[in-house]
């Protein structure tokens, strides 16, 4: 594989992750945070008074990381943040499995797209691999980073 092919693969991976994070975050942002809080409630991971603030925060984080990856801004850091997000999602879903909590819908993409927890964990694993690929080639078509760093001070 040539360097340009590797760059293209990393940029494609980054774009895919960005679009998934943006779709998930924007979809959740359209609905009331109380709806996502009601989904989070079923995970039994957060104290009740944290549910609503967290349900407002998470979609914004997804949109932030998605935007950063799409525009090629601080690619290494944003790819690491995406990996951390997907790892946290897998951890949360796995913990419900281990505790025997049945989840019909993980609520990962808001209420519009229903995915079984098992399917989401598989998808998140693929996305972690793609985030790693994106992280290994942070300069691949990263136009905001390239614009920031071009030329002299």
């Amino acid at each position: 594989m040539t360097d340009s092919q590797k760059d293209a693969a990393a940029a494609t991976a980054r774009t895919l992750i960005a679009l998934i994070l943006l779709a998930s975050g924007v979809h959740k942002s359209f609905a009331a945070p109380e709806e996502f809080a009601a989904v989070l409630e079923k995970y039994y991971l957060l104290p009740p008074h944290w549910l609503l603030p967290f349900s407002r925060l998470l979609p914004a984080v997804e949109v932030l990381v998605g935007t950063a990856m799409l525009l090629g801004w601080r690619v290494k850091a944003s790819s690491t943040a995406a990996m951390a997000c997907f790892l946290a999602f897998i951890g949360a879903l796995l913990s419900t499995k281990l505790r025997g909590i049945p989840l019909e819908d993980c609520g990962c993409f808001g209420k519009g797209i229903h995915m079984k927890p098992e399917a989401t964990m598989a998808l998140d694993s693929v996305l972690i691999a793609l985030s790693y690929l994106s992280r290994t080639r942070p300069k691949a078509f990263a136009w905001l980073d390239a614009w920031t760093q071009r030329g002299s001070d």
Partner: protein
Amino acid sequence: MPKTRASRSLASTLIVLGTTAVLAGGPRLLTPEWVPDGPPYRKKGPANPAVVIAEFSDFQCPACSAAAPHLKAILELFPDKVGVVFKHRAWDFHPHAVNAGVAAECAGKAGRFWDYHDKLFSTQPAWSVMESTGAAAAYFQKTADEMGLDRAAFAACAKNPATAELVAADIKEAGEKWVNSTPTFIIGGKRFVGSNQLRTLGLNQVENLLKKKS
């Protein structure tokens, strides 16, 4: 255009944060809060309640059935101040939900909406597992008969497409306002989803609104 690396770095940060603010905050501005209303027979409580709870519910949804006692408890706490209006949010993956809503509408036209509402929720485990819509329709008719409703009028109402349109209109309204979970309660423009939010945050909202109005 920013000329130094530092200014371009700042501009990049602002572009990303600005885009995030628009994408994460904008959608909520497109779905403003509103005050849902319904026909008089779907309202319960005092004639001019200080606070109205709009309940978006699906008769075949177990969480809606579980929330019913909590809603009842709030109404009993403030019998002269708090009212409720029922709104249909039947899901297409619940095969008998629309027909149950239609049956409740027909009971409502005979002045017994809330009795029928309570009956549907209390017997939900029995009728929600019925395999055919015919069997469920027969069950809804039998329930009306047991409540002493006029059999012919109930049957005619249940078959009238205009009744189904009332249910469909509520579902459409809920969809347009992004009510994507049941039960959703709207109290003074704020949403509360599920029993837990209703009995904690929802009850606080009712108390705060009553304090403001007293």
